[in-house]
Each structure stands twice: as C-alpha cells, then as structure tokens.
C-alpha cells in the first residue's frame, strides 16, 4: 500500500491556499440552565464564571490544531442557552447588564462572537420575553461580540405576527443606536422561522434547551473549492455530472471539518456535537457562492435560473456532507449573504440581484435573507412585511428561514454600507415603496399550516 498519494496532498494544499478552504467556526455550545437565580447580578456572575470555566482554552487549543494541520480556523465562538429563558426568573431583570457581562467574558476568553442573546416566541410572549425584546437594541449597541436572535415562527406553531412587528422595531432601533458605524448593530441580530438548536453560525447560534451541557459544533466552508472544481468541468457537462462533483467536494470539505472538530473537542474534553457544512462566503475574491452560479453558466447571480442553480447546489452539498459524517447538523447548505460575498455585491450593484430575487432564492437556500442593507428611512411596517414574507417561506416549506437586514440610518439607494471584516460591505438595496402598514398591524398569530394536501 502506498504511504501517501502525491496528487491528494497537492490537491489539499491547493484547496486551502488558493480556494480558501477553511474551518469557518468552532463554536462551543454551552448550556446555562444551571445559571438561573432571582437576582440579575448573581445570574450574570454565574454565566460569566461558566463561560470562563469552559471556554478559557478554546482559542489556544484551536490555534494549536490550526498549526498542526495548516488549515485556518477563522472564528472561535460560543453559543449560549437563550438568555430570555436563563434570566427570566430574576426580579426586575436587567438584560443589558447580563449582555455586558457576557461580552466581558467573551473578551476575556478571546472568542470572536458569542451568541444566545435570544428568545423563542414563535407561539407567544411571556412577560420576560416582552421585557427582553425592549432591551435588545441597547444590549447590542453596548457590546461588541454579542449576537442576538429570535425565533418568530415554526411550521408546527405558525408565525407570531406581534413578534414580527416588534422585531422590525428592534432592528430599526438597533440600527439607530449604532448609526455612527453604518448601523452595524443590526448585523448582529437575526430573526428565524424554524430556528435550529445546534447552529454554529452567527448571528443565530444559540444552545437549544434540548442540547447537552456542552458540545463543540463545527462550521466548515469552502465555496471557492466548489466553484473552482465546476470551472474545471467541461461547459457541456450535464447536471448529473455537476451535482456529483459538488457532492465529492462537499464530502472532502466535511471530512476535513470533522477531523479538526473531533481533535479540538477531545483536547477541550467536551463532546463533539455536529458539523455544519455551509458554503459560507467571505468578501475575498474566490470565496463566493455567486461565483458558483457563474461557474455553472449564469452570467450573474440573480439571472433567471439562479434559483434552480441554488436548489441543486444546496441539495448536493447536503448529500455530500451527509456521507462524510454521521452528525451533520446546524444549517448545512449554501448561504447567500449579500455583503459577505464579492460576487453577490457585484450582482446587486449591477441590478441583477434584487431583494425580490433573493427572497425567491431563500425558498431553496440553507437559511434566508442575509446581510442585506436597505435605506435607513424604510418604515418599520415595511421591514415587518419583509420579515413576514420570509417567515411564510419557512413555515410552509418546513425549512429554516431567517432575516438579517440592516436599515442603514442616513444612507439610501446608490450608497453602500461598510461593516468591515467578515461582514464586508453592502450596497443599499431598493425595497418595495408601497405600504404594508395595515397588514402588519393586525397582529395575532398566523395559524399553523396544514401539512397535507401539498400542492
């Protein structure tokens, strides 16, 4: 038997060096169910101590493994039990204080982001949830590493439209409080339909109430690996061949992620959770999902045919990933954030990609409307309408959908917002000018949908 295969070694190095194969995130999921108390400060201190106890070595150990395999581990993160649940029993709870203590702990252990400043209100609000919603904007504006998410609907429960409108208000207020930085606060907040409990990606990562004490979840990425492989295919190769190639690439990416994840989990002495194989782009050239559409033969992302290209891509990625690991979870599929993807930004600037087309694409992508900048003067009711549409797609199609939208205060069409780092930059996109005011103010719940008579 050969000791090693030269071609495979060269291919792996190329994937890492040229096509940006990376471990996008190692996310430590941490249950805070033992941090409840009747006092805000006590709860905050318990959370702080628990983060330090479990995550102190996360960054150092991840760096060590990155060095051993020469594969970049881009982000180290923590996902917590939804804080709305953990802190609800505190008297006159001050969620902002808790947010700041979590942020302090995140800085102390050196992680990039911490998620779980979250609430699950798909069927209704508790008193604590209402108070929590009110305090999200200030919590996001007064922290750096904290991410917040809310679940507004499920296929089983329907959609909480009161929460949809409140969420639009949260987004707008957060944008206003962070207007000096192109409203970046709103980029750290996402709302879901059918939120998943083991997702390692931000802003939506949290540790679900059904999850273990702690686990290490891995998010692996490599859109460049897939687009370059498709580019090398003959232009006449049929879709069977294209799909097969995507599966093979997804398999390779997932096995690399699983290996790194298991090594790190062992070193940290925590159980390995799931691997989330998501083609998550970065603003770097050659690390773009839009470029995969181009490689498939579309002139630009957004051209007619894009939804089909994305549907096939998303499905093939999952099939390849499933074969590579027994514990594929999270959001696995293809992300289509606008600001984080050079090809998407180009398509949006050219007018090829619109919010309406993106909405259609979210019916087959892994999540939803992501990192889209809109004019700062967009009414709350219009934002609520955008969210409601997205929740509808998730609820009816039994998939996770999300909205991470940034009303950039003081900016409008023709300008762009700069978020920096992995968040990139986004052209301000046009929204429908007609009003959703009366519709979204009806409130109440959209009844749970029928799960038969599917047509």
């Amino acid at each position: 038997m050969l000791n090693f295969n030269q071609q495979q070694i060269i291919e792996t190095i190329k994937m890492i060096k040229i096509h940006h194969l990376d471990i996008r995130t190692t996310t430590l999921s941490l249950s805070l169910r033992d941090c409840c108390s009747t006092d805000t400060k006590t709860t905050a201190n318990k959370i702080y101590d628990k983060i330090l106890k479990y995550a102190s070595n996360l960054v150092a150990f991840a760096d060590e493994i990155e060095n051993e395999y020469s594969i970049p581990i881009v982000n180290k993160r923590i996902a917590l039990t939804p804080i709305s649940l953990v802190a609800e029993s505190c008297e006159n709870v001050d969620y902002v204080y808790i947010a700041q203590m979590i942020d302090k702990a995140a800085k102390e252990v050196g992680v990039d982001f911490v998620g779980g400043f979250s609430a699950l209100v798909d069927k209704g609000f508790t008193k604590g949830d209402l108070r929590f919603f009110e305090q999200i904007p200030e919590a996001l504006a007064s922290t750096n590493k904290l991410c917040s998410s809310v679940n507004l609907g499920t296929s089983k429960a329907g959609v909480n439209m009161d929460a949809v409108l409140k969420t639009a208000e949260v987004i707008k207020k957060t944008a206003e409080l962070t207007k000096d930085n192109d409203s970046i606060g709103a980029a750290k907040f996402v709302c879901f339909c059918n939120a998943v409990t083991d997702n390692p990606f931000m802003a939506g990562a949290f540790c679900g109430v059904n999850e273990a004490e702690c686990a290490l979840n891995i998010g692996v990425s490599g859109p460049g690996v897939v687009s370059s492989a498709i580019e090398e295919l003959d232009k006449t190769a049929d879709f069977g061949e294209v799909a097969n190639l995507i599966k093979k690439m997804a398999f390779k990416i997932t096995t690399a992620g699983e290996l790194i994840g298991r090594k790190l989990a062992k070193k940290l002495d925590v159980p390995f959770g799931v691997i989330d194989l998501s083609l998550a782009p970065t603003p770097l050239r050659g690390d773009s999902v839009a470029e995969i559409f181009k490689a498939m033969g579309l002139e630009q992302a957004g051209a007619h045919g894009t939804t089909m290209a994305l549907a096939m891509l998303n499905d093939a990625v999952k099939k390849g990933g499933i074969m590579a690991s027994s514990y594929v979870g999270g959001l696995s599929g293809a992300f289509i954030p606008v600001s984080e993807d050079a090809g998407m930004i180009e398509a949006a600037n050219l007018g090829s990609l619109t919010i309406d087309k993106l909405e259609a694409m979210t019916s087959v992508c892994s999540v939803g409307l992501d990192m889209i900048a809109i004019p700062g003067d967009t009414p709350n009711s219009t934002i609520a309408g955008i969210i409601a549409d997205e929740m509808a797609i998730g609820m009816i199609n039994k998939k996770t959908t999300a909205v991470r939208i940034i009303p950039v205060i003081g900016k409008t069409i023709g300008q762009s917002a700069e978020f920096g780092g992995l968040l990139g930059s986004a052209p301000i996109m046009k929204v429908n000018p007609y009003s959703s005011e009366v519709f979204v103010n009806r409130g109440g719940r959209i009844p749970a949908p029928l799960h038969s008579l599917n047509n």
Partner: protein
Amino acid sequence: MNEVDTNQIIITVTGKDKVGIVSAVSNALASNKVNIEDIKQTIMQDNFVMIMLCNIEKMEVSFKEFKDNILKLSQELGMEIWVQKKDIFDRMHTI
C-alpha cells in the same frame, strides 16, 4: 472513528529547483530528531515538488517549535514548505 498514527506528518516542499534542497531539509529534520519514512520528488509545471512522509515520535521539541524552525528554513531556501499532520489527507480522500 479509528485513531491513526498521529505521529506521521507530511512535509511538502515546492519552488524553483536548486542545489541542496533535500540536504537542507533533511538536516533540519535530523536536528529536530524527525525521522524520514518516505520521499517522493517530481517536477510539476516547472516547479520542484518534494513530499516527505516523516515521523515525529522521537521529536524533542514541541510541534509549534519544530514547525517554526522549518518555516524559517523555507524563507532561507526561498521555497514554500507545508508541514501538516498526515491524517487530514487520509480522511479527506478516503471514503
């Protein structure tokens, strides 16, 4: 998952061919007590490519220190050198 021999590493050296590459890399490995188990060399698109399978079982320094030494050597030689644990290749390319 079965544990494989994690003491095996792959060293990949690429760049313009010149006199003394093998000797320089081998010396660096020997001085760090790293054993060479197999070597393959080839020319790919006018580039010299050497892949070495090594064992770090008897290495007396930390992996990081060893890798830093090799990366320093790569700068001196003007060659690109990758040092990676071998199991990543075994996993990624085998079902």
